[in-house]
């Protein structure tokens, strides 16, 4: 009897990942099609509207780019840690920490000029995100505590901190008891670039570029790759693993924190508990699909930005925005499945059966 089995290819297919990505997209659209039909919608009309509202003109692009900014920075944060084999699941909390840091600077710097205030806010966001990653980073580097658990748990703590601030000390006295902070002063908002796109697009693009170059062209990035490939080899080459773990996790947290600062200053009017909107978790998917490469992160973040913006636009025609979440999930599934096929091939092999000749022979 023969059965199909996955057999490792001698070398992965060239261009396998973009291909896998395209397959994922097609799978997602096909599954979405079926779901939309089942929900009583016209799939092509829904997809057309998603396309128009996210990618068809410069106005749509400006929204997509804005959405891609936190996704890209969060994805970069996860990818930087991931390239060393570390998983920062705490980008969500670090985004909140960054937003809190930026909001705090906006409160104390109300009188500062725009450029100074915004720079200070983003710096504070960067530091606050790093600060939230400090405990997991030190614990991992010094005594080997699993960073997945610690970073994940800190998400909850960051969320509670935001809730406490907006219900308590930072609540707007004129908000009629709603849990809202005052609006940001105008000079604390990132200037617009075109359409509704703000300067965060440039900032995120620059940060991603810096990391892409650092990861592929510098000794620092090289050491990161060695350590990510084999900790023993890193020790052999005299690379200090502890220091690498520490700096990488702190940087990862800081980049996620920056996403929170940019989101606050660019898109939100005030600090809310929903300011992150799951960007930190989506960032994990973005990083995974980008194979932990900074350049790939930019591309995947754009696509996810478009899917999310498109997903919001179809609410007006009575379709749940969850459609976009479902699409994102199936892009991931499809791409992971197709990614496996770029490394393995399906072959028929001799089937597995019990012992043919047994004691009865």
């Amino acid at each position, binding site marked *: 009897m023969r059965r199909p089995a996955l057999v490792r290819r*001698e*070398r992965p297919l060239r261009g396998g990942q973009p291909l896998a990505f395209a397959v994922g997209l097609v799978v997602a659209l096909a599954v979405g099609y079926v779901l939309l039909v089942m929900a009583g919608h016209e799939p092509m009309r829904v997809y057309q509207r998603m396309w128009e509202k996210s990618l068809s003109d410069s106005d749509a692009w400006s929204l997509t780019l804005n959405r891609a900014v936190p996704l890209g920075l969060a994805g970069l944060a996860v990818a930087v840690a991931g390239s060393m084999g570390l998983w920062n699941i705490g980008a969500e909390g670090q985004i909140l920490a960054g937003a809190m840091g930026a909001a705090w600077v906006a409160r104390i710097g109300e009188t500062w000029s725009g450029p100074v205030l915004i720079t200070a806010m983003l710096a504070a966001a960067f530091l606050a995100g790093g600060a939230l990653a400090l405990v997991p980073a030190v614990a991992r580097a010094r005594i080997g505590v699993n960073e997945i658990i610690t970073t994940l748990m800190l998400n909850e703590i960051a969320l509670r901190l935001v809730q406490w601030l907006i219900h308590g000390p930072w609540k707007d006295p004129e908000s009629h008891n709603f849990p809202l902070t005052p609006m940001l002063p105008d000079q604390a908002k990132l200037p617009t670039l075109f359409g509704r796109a703000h300067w965060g697009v440039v900032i995120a693009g620059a940060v991603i570029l810096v990391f892409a170059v*650092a990861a592929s*062209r*510098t*000794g*620092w990035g*090289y050491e990161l*790759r*060695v350590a*990510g*490939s*084999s900790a*023993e*080899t*890193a*020790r*052999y*080459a*005299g690379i200090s693993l502890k220091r690498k773990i520490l700096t990488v996790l702190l940087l990862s947290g800081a980049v996620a924190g920056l996403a929170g600062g940019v989101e606050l200053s660019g898109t939100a009017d005030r600090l809310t508990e929903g300011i992150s909107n799951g960007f930190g978790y989506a960032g994990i998917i973005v990083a995974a699909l980008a194979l932990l490469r900074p350049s790939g992160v930019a591309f995947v973040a754009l696509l996810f930005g478009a899917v999310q913006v498109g997903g919001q636009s179809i609410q007006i025609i009575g379709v749940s925005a969850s459609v976009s979440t479902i699409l994102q999930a199936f892009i991931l599934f499809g791409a992971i499945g197709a990614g496996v096929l770029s490394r393995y091939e399906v072959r028929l092999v001799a089937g*597995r*059966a*019990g*012992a*043919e*000749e*047994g*004691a009865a*022979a």
Partner: protein
Amino acid sequence: MEEEVGESLATPAVELVDIWKRFPGVVANAGAHLRVRGGTVHAVLGENGAGKSTLVNVLSGVYRPDEGEVRLGGMPYRFRTPADALAAGIGMVHQEFRLVPSFTVAENVVLGAAKRVLRRGDLEERVGELGRRFGLATEPDRPVWQLSMGERQRVEILKALWRDARILILDEPTAVLTPAEAEELGEVLRHMADDGRSVIFISHKLHEVTGFCDEATVLRGGETVAASLPVAETDAATLAGLMVGATPLTNERPPSRTPGEVRLGVSGLRALGDRGLEAVGGVDLEVRSGEIVGIAGVAGNGQRELAQVVAGLRPATSGTVTLDGADMTGAPPRARFAAGLAYIPEDRLGVGLAPRLSVVENSVLRTYRGQRRGPFLSGSRMAAHCRDLVERFGVRTGPLGDPIAGLSGGNLQRLLVGRELSGRPSVVVAAQPTRGLDVQGVKAIQNLLVAERDAGTAVLLISEDLDELLTIADRLLVLHDGSIAGEFDPASAERHAIGEAMVGQAPETAP
């Protein structure tokens, strides 16, 4: 099969007949035989690479033999999976334990083998009873993470007994045990044999074999060189001789040169192994400029740890390591490399080379700090360095930007050795540098080491291949149980004397 019922006593419980197993580039079993009688403890002996593990993996269903037959109680069997073998009553205790640390002893024992839901109390009761029957003292309600290595091994043995294994295979079971624990294990195995079961005991510690085994089968080069020797009628020296063989030297020894000053000095060196037991127990040695000092020994006698301590990858608990007279005992690996120490580690891929990185990236592992322009690495200089290594050391490779894991073992080693030697070292520590390579690869690496010696480098060569050491080493030290058990002149030494020192049978011989 015309045998009578009365013959069943003579029918061996296990027979492996003319087993052949080939892997790419190596024949692991070349017509190996094994006959184990019921109710005995049977030792399988052999040096590393003799084919012991392959042979028992054929029996336990992990490998399917290319040719040959497995018979249990005279009946032919063909196992497709380890589960088939287990169902036929064959249990295996691997060197690495397969236990769930957070589960209790009883839970681990029945994991995957409970036919119905059992009450915890009943379960612990029955596991405890099984242990008492075979003299395996355990506390069934203790979680496994609290147990010592010896206790964990007992749990593994209980797992096999719970599944009613009639044939129990133990792969180097005493490697992780203290001497007292090893003694106890011997008694347990005796109990099981007295119960009518067969125990197959893989080892290269001869005193254990003579201590509690009934018969011994010796493998060398994938073949059975002695089958079912009654242990009572043989002695450790005979077994040692069988293990290492008596093939006369046919290899031409490259001419030695007069050694110069001491480059590498090791004095009173002690270090712990991975399990926290002492692995290096007071080693003194010197390697001079222009000589190859060989370290012989059966695997697991401290060679790996000794190399790691010298390279700076394992801390010394006492003693010193000096390079060109300078104390390097506490120096990090990078400082030692800078001081002229090249290290060819036992694990090529995973220590010496990073598997997912490209050929170029791996070729600059030691020198990338010198390939910088500002913060940036110079891609062209790295590539040039890599091309130079590839050409000079004859590395056969695909595109240099491809992951190195795609290279064959011999080419990996050429690149690694080339990279280490290209830094013009004054001392080379090479651990098992030719293990697993084909004949050409072995020769190429040996020639490189000899050429390095002729250029005045001090070479410490750790190898399990005695022929290799006798061919290219200028002096030979035997490591046994973490200390030097003898020094020999490779040009004139008797092989059996070396073999005896390797298994701890010889008195210390003065040079």
